[in-house]
């Protein structure tokens, strides 16, 4: 906790220094207290738009992670699919989300669906890739042992491969949770009537830079909070995974 406070103080000090050196223009780089003032003055507005963005991110994580994990499992259950579908998954990640955002808005509308889709798309690949790698890297000696115990192919996946791949899935989820807001905000930026991205776009156009920074700060806090929550849940549910760096002070 103390480390985090020190880090925060250091960041704010750096911010004030940059603000001072850049000529103290509140329309270019506002001071921290100006951002706090904007945050207080627009609390209701920020809360309303923040809640919408948070909803998009969480739904995107649920759908993207669910679909990603299911795809990885599908590739293992049905081996020929891997050869056909893996390039498609790769291609989905090669397309810049910013390029397909206008298309998604065109197809799915200005509302929630296009943003959830964007966040889902961005989280899909790290989750699918992490889980799929985990499923493929099961210790062959354990599989041999299980075969001498007359395990069916499904039992091998259900009781050996799947649990052994959970740390890989967890790594994918940790990355996914952090990048999901990029998708949601990009979607809002391209076309929407609500959300923090929408708010930032308009604040920027009207030179309300302190408000824009306030929205950014809330987005960052949301991402950090989501990561901390996900990390905590994942550690709790995988107590057998040893963190060999955990003892570093």
């Amino acid at each position, binding site marked *: 906790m103390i480390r985090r406070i020190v880090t925060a103080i250091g960041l704010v000090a750096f911010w004030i220094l940059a603000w001072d050196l850049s000529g103290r223009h509140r329309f270019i780089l506002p001071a921290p207290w100006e951002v706090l003032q904007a945050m207080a003055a627009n609390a209701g507005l920020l809360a309303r738009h923040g809640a919408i963005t948070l909803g998009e991110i969480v739904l995107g994580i649920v759908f993207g992670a669910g679909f990603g994990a299911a795809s990885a499992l599908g590739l293992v259950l049905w081996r020929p699919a891997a050869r056909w579908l893996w390039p498609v998954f790769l291609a989905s990640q090669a397309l810049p989300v910013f390029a397909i955002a206008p298309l998604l808005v065109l197809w799915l509308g200005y509302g929630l669906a296009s943003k959830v889709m964007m966040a889902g798309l961005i989280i899909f690949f790290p989750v699918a890739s992490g889980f799929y790698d985990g499923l493929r890297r099961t210790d062959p000696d354990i599989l041999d042992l299980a075969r001498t*115990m007359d*395990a069916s192919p499904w039992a091998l996946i259900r*009781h050996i491969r799947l649990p*052994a791949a959970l740390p890989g899935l967890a790594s994918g989820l940790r990355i996914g949770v952090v990048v999901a807001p990029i998708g949601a905000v990009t979607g809002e930026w391209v076309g929407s009537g609500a959300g923090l991205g929408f708010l930032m776009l308009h604040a920027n156009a009207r030179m309300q830079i302190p408000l824009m920074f306030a929205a950014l700060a809330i987005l960052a806090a949301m991402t950090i909070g989501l990561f901390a929550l996900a990390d905590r849940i994942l550690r709790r549910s995988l107590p057998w995974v040893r963190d060999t760096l955990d003892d570093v002070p």
Partner: protein
Amino acid sequence: MRFPGGWSLPKGLSPEVPHHTKTCSLLPGDPVENRDVNQNRAAMPADLSPDPLPPGVRVRNLSLRLGNLALFDGMDFDAEAGRFTGILGVSGIGKSTLLRVIAGLEAVPGAEVGDDNRRPLSGRIAWMAQKDLLLPWLSVLDNVRLGARLRGSLAGTEDRALALLRAVGLEARARDLPRTLSGGMRQRVAIARTLMENRPLVLMDEPFSAVDPLTRLGLQDLAARVLCGRTVVFVTHDPLEAVRLGHRVIVLAGRPAVPRAIALPDEAWPRPADSPAVLAAQAAILSALGAPAEEQG
């Protein structure tokens, strides 16, 4: 037997059950027909006895090449029913491969693998590897019951698993995760898991090579006690382990590998680690390990 420094072995498998090592103390010269297997079974606690009767192992015409390397060329191998057969050989000679062939983990075209009545061995094998292969996400108890879990028949197996953990001295750790156990404890859990399968044929690939020498001697005594009455084929790098546990010891040497039986001393089984005859047999194994194939009879 007690060993200094380490843990002491459980004196019997459980207090109410008579010690049955004696029924297994057969000397290598005894013809297997003389042994009353059923009497042997009766002397054991019901949940530790092999069921059904232990099969012999019969491998014929095993030929296997790895690239230009001929591992085996028409090799034959036999293991007697209800006895411990040890296989030794330098690294890369094909010991583990032979064991995997017997286990059905490696299919070799043209080779004949079965029991002494030429029936297939599948379904009668318990496998124990060099690594303990405990699943880190399952408790000690659930690791012992892994086979039942994989076959979808977990219900009603807890009592037997706990009894086996008691036999290897780890009942108190049943609910712990494997990562909290020492290497020797983990191997004892692996032994309990092997026993839980209750298969009449046990295949062990360097089972105790990853623990310190004292713990290893203790584990050998434990294995001799609890696996007695089953057919056991084990691969080892340790001549002492082979002489202590083997009713019969085979050394593989040469390329392609040729099996050669080693004469064993007439000592009570499991043989004591410190007797001169056991030391002499170890020396014979060491010289056989290094002998080129041409010199073998």
